[in-house]
């Protein structure tokens, strides 16, 4: 990913001076950030710091009050999740957001169902495509025809990730993807995240889990009260620096870049 940064190619995503107000509350105040291919950028902060809000703006679920978003250097105006998907932006939610009473293929293709030439659902093809897509991620995934309410948290998250891969997402937003998962499932999702990164997908990772952040992220960006209070390469900060930013909004007084990159 650093190659991309150095060659001066436009970033996958560039968010400039994003503002979002709800009545008198400023949820996001003038935040700018960017994301390059094959890079994981951690978005950190307290609950209510505005990180989910910022990501919802990028995923089209919410509209910014002002500010610009560029995708691959071209201005992108996201009015709905549908628009965002057209730009290759997919989101994975902490709530394992799926339609509970439908099966895995139906969820994988939700909103973009495959249809036969008669216009009805092409269940056969959706099942075979979903089987293929899910097998690549998790060979144990066999009970495809069951309502997803019966599946484990990890399996549900795999469906969400498979959705992103199947529709060839370029930009992935992971909003605390492991918050509802157990330890082994968390490890599986972390595995998948690195796999996606290797394939050149850019990932915004919202997380509260410092271990995850240091294991997966290339850069971090910390938000406090709606503002971006610091963006660093992961080598330049340690856990305490980040906690200080999250809690106080400033770095420790004696901070200097810790990385050996300079």
């Amino acid at each position, binding site marked *: 990913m650093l190659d991309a940064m150095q060659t001066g190619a436009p970033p996958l995503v560039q968010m400039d001076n994003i503002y979002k107000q709800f009545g008198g509350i400023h949820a996001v105040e003038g935040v700018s950030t960017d994301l390059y291919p094959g890079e994981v950028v951690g978005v950190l902060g307290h609950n209510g710091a505005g990180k989910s809000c910022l990501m919802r703006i990028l*995923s089209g*679920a919410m509209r910014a009050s002002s500010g610009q978003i560029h995708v691959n250097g071209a201005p992108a105006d996201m009015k*709905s*999740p*549908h628009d965002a*998907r057209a730009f290759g932006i997919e*989101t994975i*939610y902490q*709530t394992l*957001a*799926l*339609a*509970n*009473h*439908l099966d895995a293929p*139906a*969820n994988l293709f*939700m*909103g*973009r*169902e495959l*249809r036969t030439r008669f*216009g*009805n*659902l092409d269940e056969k093809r959706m099942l075979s495509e979903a089987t293929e897509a899910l097998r690549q991620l*998790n*060979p*144990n995934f*066999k*009970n495809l025809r*069951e*309502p997803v*309410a*019966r599946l*484990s948290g990890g399996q549900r998250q795999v469906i969400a990730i498979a*959705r992103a891969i199947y529709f060839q997402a370029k930009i992935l937003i992971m909003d605390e993807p492991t918050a509802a998962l157990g*330890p*082994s*499932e968390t*490890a*599986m999702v*972390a*595995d998948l995240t690195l796999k996606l990164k290797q394939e050149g997908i850019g990932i915004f990772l919202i997380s509260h889990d410092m271990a995850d952040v240091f294991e997966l992220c290339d850069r971090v960006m910390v938000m406090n009260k709606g503002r971006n209070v610091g963006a660093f390469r992961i080598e330049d900060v340690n856990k305490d620096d980040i906690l200080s930013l999250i809690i106080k909004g400033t770095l420790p007084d004696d901070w200097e870049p810790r990385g050996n990159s300079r």
Partner: protein
Amino acid sequence: MSAATQGADKDERIKEISRFRQALIRPELGGIVGTVAVFTFFLLTAFDSGMFNAQGVMNWSVVSAQFMIIAVGACLLMIAGEFDLSVGSMIGFAGMMIAIFSVTLAWPVWLAIMITFVLCVFIGAINGFIVIRTGLPSFIVTLAFLFILRGFTIFFPQVLERKTIIGGIKDAAEGDWLAPFFGGKVGGPIFEWMGNVGLIETFSRGTRAGQPVVDGIPMLIVWAIGLVIFGHILLTRTRFGNWIFAAGGDAEAARNSGVPVNRVKVLMFMFTAFCATVFATCQVMEFGSAGADRGLLKEFEAIIAVVIGGALLTGGYGSVIGAALGALIFGVVQQGLFFAGVESSLFRVFLGLILLGAVILNTYIRRLITGER
């Protein structure tokens, strides 16, 4: 950390379920069991009463078909996560509008029917838009429309005709091309033939001597079957059906996946209104009059049929076939108790017991299917 994904070739948490069990356990199971139970009961207790000869069958079929028409709309709307309590008032309102347009204003009946359909589906859309825009529970919004529409249904004929029942629609509909699609009968020649060869009884006296006792299938039943087939295919075979399930299951998740949840819900409100208007039109064409009290409590009867049929009150789960069976159970019990000579006031007791039994059975089945606890 990759250790977690390895070393588990076979996931012991996945339980194998036999094909038979899988085929058996479906949302409609409660409805199927109920239908079998109800028919068994009446075959044993009321077989000789005429309930199962041609006239008797037609009698409870028509009543069941009425329930079916409104149950299909209520079912799809409930799966989409919303209620419509204004169905009963909508039936009264639609019938009254047809009467006012065709009799009081003397418009051609086909025009009266069409305008009424447009008007009622539009009111359904308003219901939907208010629910979507305000985020209020549809329970409250449509409760308001229950009163508003019923109020107008009483007000308009009072002011225009100084009475609460407008008749004379049969005369107005004479020779109309659209009216037979709601008030007519099909299959007359087949029934005549069945009467001739002795499959069904014929009148032995009177002006209709020699004619079969049942001279055709009312369009009401044709509409009911048509709507059930349409609803079932829409729900299970199209992507719109998937969206209905998703919108009712978790609207936020559906929205995030790019499902146009608002459009789905508004369309379902419109479809419910459409079904209510079909019911009203058939009723008006059959009776030849519209009354201000028509359709009272129909909204609950529709919801009961849907719930007997296995749908979840909170949305996201259900079946049109189940709702149709629920309507059949409802109709057969209502008419069957009459044939069996049971005191008619006990009908409500039976209905309550069936509703309770069905809901308990359905909850159990649903847990088997979805693994909820």
